[in-house]
């Protein structure tokens, strides 16, 4: 059977995972999820702990079996295949390096199990060690490595057998901030160089946005939204997605008229303008929630009907900028973020009255 170019790397079809006897008494970890992950894609499953992202990864790896539904790998059913017969490899959260083997032995393990000829094993081990810049530590025991180095070995070990899909289970969560930043760039580079489909699980929204081609935001065993990082950040479909990713203001308002994917809205606080509409509009009532990112707001000098106004309640400084909290006459609090552009730029102090402009086309209506 020939694989078509359009075949998804991973095709998850209405897959559920229920722990326990049944839906009523058990725990529904994954609830009829359907998802297609493209070949050569850096795909991220993003969500808080307990959202089902790791369960989904374990179903693909074969450590768990789905209660319902099916998973296809490049068009082939994975059902009933044990982990050792699936051409996918995992980078575990705590690396799970074999402590009784050296770095090189760890990396060659998978190749040995696939009965790869010895000469090819040693050349592949060299190649992947080069890929993660660890050639000089090939003969070290794994417990003599730092966290970052262990991370690289775990990556090299999972990449060595050239899997069709690489699964990464929060691999950066144990690293400190700087190292994590470095590894983010590194992972993206590895994905580009190897051309392998990466499925990355994380609860860190920033990680998801920087590295991914596409992101699926999950909660309570459901996928709430799938899209590229800009869509997820700028056009969140649901309140949870908006809230989970970055800082956001959610204000109340009314839809005056709809026009395709956009609508004219009037905020209770006064401003009138266009906002993006979510795909599902059925659940929208008269009053809707409208999201605006804090960096889309700016101070203006004069009051006007196209501006919001209120009094500054709190100012916090975070190095590269300032957050202003402003209470409006409606009682709603709005957050405004300004970049730090040097002294004299922000003349406001707590208690001042301020007028705020909203960047054009930056509002998004949220479904619940």
């Amino acid at each position, binding site marked *: 059977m020939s694989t078509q170019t359009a075949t998804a790397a991973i095709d998850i079809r209405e897959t559920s995972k229920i722990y326990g006897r049944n839906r009523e008494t058990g725990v529904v970890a994954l609830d009829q999820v359907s998802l297609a992950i493209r070949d050569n894609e850096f795909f991220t499953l993003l969500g808080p702990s307990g959202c089902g992202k790791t369960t989904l990864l374990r179903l693909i790896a074969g450590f768990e079996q789905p209660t319902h539904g099916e998973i296809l790998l490049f068009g082939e059913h994975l059902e009933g295949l044990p982990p*050792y017969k699936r051409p996918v*490899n995992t980078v575990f959260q705590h690396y799970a390096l074999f402590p009784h083997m050296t770095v090189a032995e760890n990396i060659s393990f998978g190749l040995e199990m696939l009965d790869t000829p010895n000469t090819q094993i040693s050349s592949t081990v060299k190649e992947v060690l080069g890929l993660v810049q660890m050639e000089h530590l090939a003969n070290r025991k794994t417990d003599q490595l730092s966290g970052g180095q262990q991370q690289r070995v775990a990556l090299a070990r999972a990449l060595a057998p050239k899997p069709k899909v690489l699964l990464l289970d929060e691999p950066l969560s144990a690293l400190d901030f700087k190292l994590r930043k470095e590894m983010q760039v590194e992972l993206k580079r590895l994905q580009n160089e190897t051309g392998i489909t990466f499925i990355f699980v994380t609860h860190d929204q920033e990680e998801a946005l920087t590295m991914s081609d596409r992101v699926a935001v999950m909660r309570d065993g459901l996928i709430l939204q799938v899209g590229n990082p800009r869509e997820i950040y700028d056009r969140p479909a649901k309140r949870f997605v908006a809230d989970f990713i970055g800082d956001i203001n959610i204000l109340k308002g009314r839809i005056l008229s709809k026009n395709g994917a956009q609508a004219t809205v009037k905020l209770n606080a006064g401003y009138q303008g266009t906002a993006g509409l979510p795909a599902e509009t059925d659940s929208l009532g008269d009053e809707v929630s409208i999201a605006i990112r804090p960096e889309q707001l700016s101070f203006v000098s004069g009051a006007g009907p196209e501006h919001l106004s209120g009094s500054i309640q709190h100012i916090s400084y975070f190095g590269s900028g300032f957050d202003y909290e402003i209470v409006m006459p409606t009682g709603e609090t709005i957050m405004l973020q300004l970049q730090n552009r040097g002294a004299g730029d922000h003349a406001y102090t707590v208690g001042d009255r301020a007028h705020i402009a909203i960047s054009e086309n930056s509002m998004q209506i949220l479904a619940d």
Partner: protein
Amino acid sequence: MVDIATTARRKIIKGIDLKYQPGFSQITWFCIVVLYAPIAVLVLFSFNENRSVTVWTQFSLDWYVKAWENEGIQHAALVSLEVAFVAMVISTILATMAALVTTRTPPYRGMNIAVAVINQPLMVPEVVTAVATLIFFAIIKQATGISGIGYLIAAHTAFCIPFAYMPIRARLEDMDLSLEQAAADLYAPPFKVFRRVTLPLLMPGILAGAMLAFIVSLDDVIITLFVAGPGETTLPLYILGQIRRGVTPEINAVSTVFLGISVILVTFIFLFGKDKK
């Protein structure tokens, strides 16, 4: 000036330090003396030149030579080693399998009961087990007509299992399941996962369990006393028999060697039991 101030501060710190427990080191020393003084005396008098085990005269190794040349002791030592070795091998294999089943399979009905049954020899008074075993073996002997040292080995194997089981299970519980999953993920079928990952990592536990089983078997008196047939006298039984006729430093010498073996094995258990991190 500075020194006086530092000393004063130290005193204050000692007074409020929660870890500072007055009298604990004295109690510790008392316990150590009570526990080990008799053993020290036993070892000391094994080197006595005199026949007495209470009056010291002069250093000699005579009693070690005598013990070494004593055929009764030789035979008893060989029986002890044979029984302990075979019981150790069988009980360790069984204990390893039991430990794997009770830690590496999904929980099943009756698993707790299985663990309880495995550990049963630790709970039941040994004399009860001894009587039960004696009667049970008598029935088998009568029915089959087979006799021999096999019965003694079987009895030892049975009570060694929980001792071998404990360190192996402890080791397995410490081992992260994700290592085995990683091996499976890297295309290793179950048997290879076991041979290449589980077994090598479990080895320290298995060795500790085996040595514990060996010592327990070597040490046993009560069950052996009931089950051992003629010509199956083990070293502890021999010592017991000799003591009835009065103690000579020969017994001290044998006991000292016995003690030495135990200490060496326990040291090994300690070294293997520790993670090499």
